[in-house]
């Protein structure tokens, strides 16, 4: 009965992803604080925040409807399913064929759709600002992401994420111009999607600048905990996508033994740390853009993705 170990590995991946997400956020905040020559909260601070929020009471706006209270669970479910389908330490997991990369992007679209609705539900102008800006950013980020998926799918011959990771790990991939363009575009999209510095400032609550925070302004208590966890989960998701596609070393092959999985986990944690570090360095070295400069930023990402796909279409070698 090979099913039980496969189920165990899949369950381990889902738990691992859940546990590591707040750690990654805490690690990034710690690195940024150190770079800004200040002490900064400990790495495990996010866990404490989650526990604190869990215990606090929920203060609900008068106008909030039943949808407002369900949305945190919906968003968390969508993001968690998406994160659990991305190969972190090993490819060929039990349910990896259930959804390919396009479906994962659609899950994130799902989460964004409902978060924007939550922003509008309370009926204050801040929710409106957040939702409308979020949808503008999404209207450029998502097509760019799909263009990146096209490029990778045309190179790897499949849209299944684990197949693509295995192909990227194999020597057959070689150095390609479209891959470089794809990586660059993917990083730009990741920054925009997670609301990192140049597009949106995750730390402040200043109305004029915030996009993601504006939508969740009205959430409190356990709902806010879920949303914070989802946000960090999403960050982890994007870092692990970049890692498994563009740094596939150490990924355990399908059905490999325990030692390979242990090596996979270690490599994954190292990649997360490297990713977090690079993100922190990038954020401290750049200032936030004006909101209406973001479309040019994301437009560039879309053009890069389209160019990469065009090159792939034109001839096999690019």
């Amino acid at each position, binding site marked *: 009965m090979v099913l039980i170990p496969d189920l165990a590995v899949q369950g381990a991946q889902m738990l691992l992803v859940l546990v590591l997400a707040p750690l990654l956020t805490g690690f990034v905040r710690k690195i940024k604080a150190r770079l800004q020559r200040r002490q900064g909260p400990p790495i495990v601070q996010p866990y404490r925040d989650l526990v604190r929020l869990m215990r606090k009471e929920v203060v609900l706006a008068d106008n909030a*409807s039943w949808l407002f209270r369900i949305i945190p669970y919906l968003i968390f479910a969508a993001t968690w399913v998406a994160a659990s389908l991305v190969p972190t330490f090993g490819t060929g997991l039990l349910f990896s064929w259930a959804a390919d990369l396009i479906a994962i992007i659609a899950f994130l679209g799902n989460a964004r759709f409902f978060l924007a609705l939550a922003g509008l539900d309370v009926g204050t102008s801040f929710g409106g600002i957040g939702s409308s800006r979020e949808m503008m950013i999404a209207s450029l980020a998502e097509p760019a992401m799909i263009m990146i998926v*096209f490029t990778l799918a045309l190179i790897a011959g499949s849209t299944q994420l684990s197949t693509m990771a295995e192909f990227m790990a194999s020597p057959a991939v070689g150095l390609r111009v479209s891959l470089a363009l794809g990586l660059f575009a993917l990083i730009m999209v990741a920054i925009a999607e997670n609301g990192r510095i140049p597009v949106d400032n995750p730390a402040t609550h200043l109305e004029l600048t915030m996009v993601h925070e504006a939508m969740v302004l009205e959430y409190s208590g356990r709902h806010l905990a879920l949303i914070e966890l989802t946000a960090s989960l999403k960050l982890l998701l994007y870092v692990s996508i970049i890692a498994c596609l563009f740094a596939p070393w150490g990924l355990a092959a399908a059905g490999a033994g325990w030692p390979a999985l242990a090596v996979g986990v270690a490599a994954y944690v190292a990649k997360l740390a490297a990713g977090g570090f690079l993100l922190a360095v990038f954020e401290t070295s750049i200032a936030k853009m004006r909101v209406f400069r973001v479309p040019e930023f994301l437009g560039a990402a879309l053009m890069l993705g389209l160019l990469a*796909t065009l090159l792939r279409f034109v001839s096999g070698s690019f």
Partner: protein
Amino acid sequence: MTLTLVLACAAALLALAPAAVIVSRSPAATPLIYGASLIVTAISLAAALAHLLGAAAPFSVTLPVGLPWLGAHFRIDALAAFFLVVVDLGAFGASLFALGYGAHETAPGRVLPFYPAFLAGMTLVVLADDAFTFLLSWEFMSLSSWALVVSHHRVPDNVRAGYIYLLMASFGTLALLLAFGLLAGVDGLYGFAQMRVAHPSATFGALALILALIGAGSKAGLVPLHVWLPLAHPAAPSHVSALMSGVMTKVAVYGFVRIVFDLAGPPAWWWSILVLALAGVTTVMGVLYALMQHDLKRLLAYHTVENIGIIFIGLGLALAFEVYGMTFAAALAFTAALLHVFNHSLFKSLLFFGAGAVLNSTGERDMEHLGGLIHRMPRTAFVFLIGCAAISALPPLNGFVSEWLTFQAILLSPQLPSWGLKLLVPAVGALLALSAALAAACFVKAYGVTFLGRPRTPVAAVAAETDRFSLAAMFLLASLCLLVGILPGLFINALAPVSAMVLGGHMPAQTGAQWLALVPIAESRSSYDGLLVFVFMVLSGGLAAIAIHRLASDRLRRAPAWDCGYPDASPATQYTAMSFAQPIRRVFGSVVFAAREHGEMPPPGDVRPARLTVTIHDLIWDALYAPIAAGVGIAADRLNSLQFLTIRQFLTLVFCTLVILLLVLAIWS
């Protein structure tokens, strides 16, 4: 047997029309007529399903009506059966909805007679097997829907919308008539069977394609010819708008497929470039138009234009693959298009029913006057949410499945040798992705501004939940959306006979993969399992809820929303439809619609309110339709002076004609 049954149903619907005229005075007319059409469409739906699922052989019958020496040919094959299912399902839903919605109709006498005629027209178009019957039922469908559009004729805009609609419909029909003239040849073989045998020459085939694109495209709503759609669909009563947007546009797609794939002979390589280019532009323009609207039904109508673009992208790809003999890829693209036809008829009808329910209880179509309806109409809000999620292609629902298949078809296209396609298909893929994202933005706006937030007008504050028939229809369609999203394999297997008949090949049977996953080409390439995804979402959501319920506190306190300390934040401070679309308008609109914002701030100390005026131009209307109308006006003015000549001048006309003809005679021979 099924064909005779379906024709009997169509005849029954036609008989209902005069009956409705007689009985329209009595209050029982509405339930009677809609109930009768409900039953008849149910029977017809059952027959069509039996024929499609049973993959029965095509069956045709000839009636002594129609052209005297030809008779009226009717034929039901896999393609006709599928579109018949779409028509009858939409009609069944609309009739069920109308049982409740129709009671509010102010002038039933103007709606009831034409509704069954409209259904009968659509059914006959799908079954027609010769050019005359096809065009007769096609134009009859347009005529009855025109009558429905002008049923609320007291509103001048409706009459104008009806006029533009009938004009474009006649233009489309005449284009189709020319196409059939080509396919029938000089000696007038109008039967489709005869046309299939006599393959037209390459040039005739190309001309037939262009004319079919104009004719069927104008009815479906391809971009340059779409202008009537957002005017006419909202003007009709809501259940008719749902039928026009959800079903009639699909009959137009059927017309295009029948002519181009079935009658016009083998396609040339550049046909797909034309179709794909048009489809790509239609997709993005449709959704950008929709984003600029604040009238709910116009937004939905414009959005139909976008979905028609997606369908034509699938058809264009199928044409491209068919030219180079890649039958399986063609089958994939064609099935993706057909699945989107089915999906769109489901969720667009659902959304129009929702808009109709809102219109009924608040009397408002303008989103700026609505808001907070989720509190007053919870069930309608829930089912409208499912519709919005489905149309925005969110995973567990059906919109995502057909879009995912279209993406898979695009990913197959690098193998096409033609250079034009190698450059065009990625661009069309980018446009499709862009329009999917914009669709999500559009429906966040539509749902958020209409149902969420605080009521902006007293009318919205006292809205009542709609009646049970309307809810029943909406829940039926919502559950179908979910079903197609979860078990796409079933529906794709049902479509296999259609693509087998039209293209000679069909997608691999979907029963093989585990857990009913959808495998369009090969296991290794890509697969998507709607059921498993849905189960995962429910499981993880449930797990989180149980964990939080047990671990976290469940204390909850209601308090006023945080509004930066303003004493009484009036509903006006909320985001409206125009303000929600402002960022996207600034990004795309300034180019596509020449959108300009002009803010006018009063000098300090002046108490007048600041005023922001946004000007949006419909560039297609200004560039194409306004000049034509102006041209006709100028020509009419100039020729009009001929009415006021004197007798002598008229005699001069006669004299000149005589002299010219004599000169022609002298010179000619």
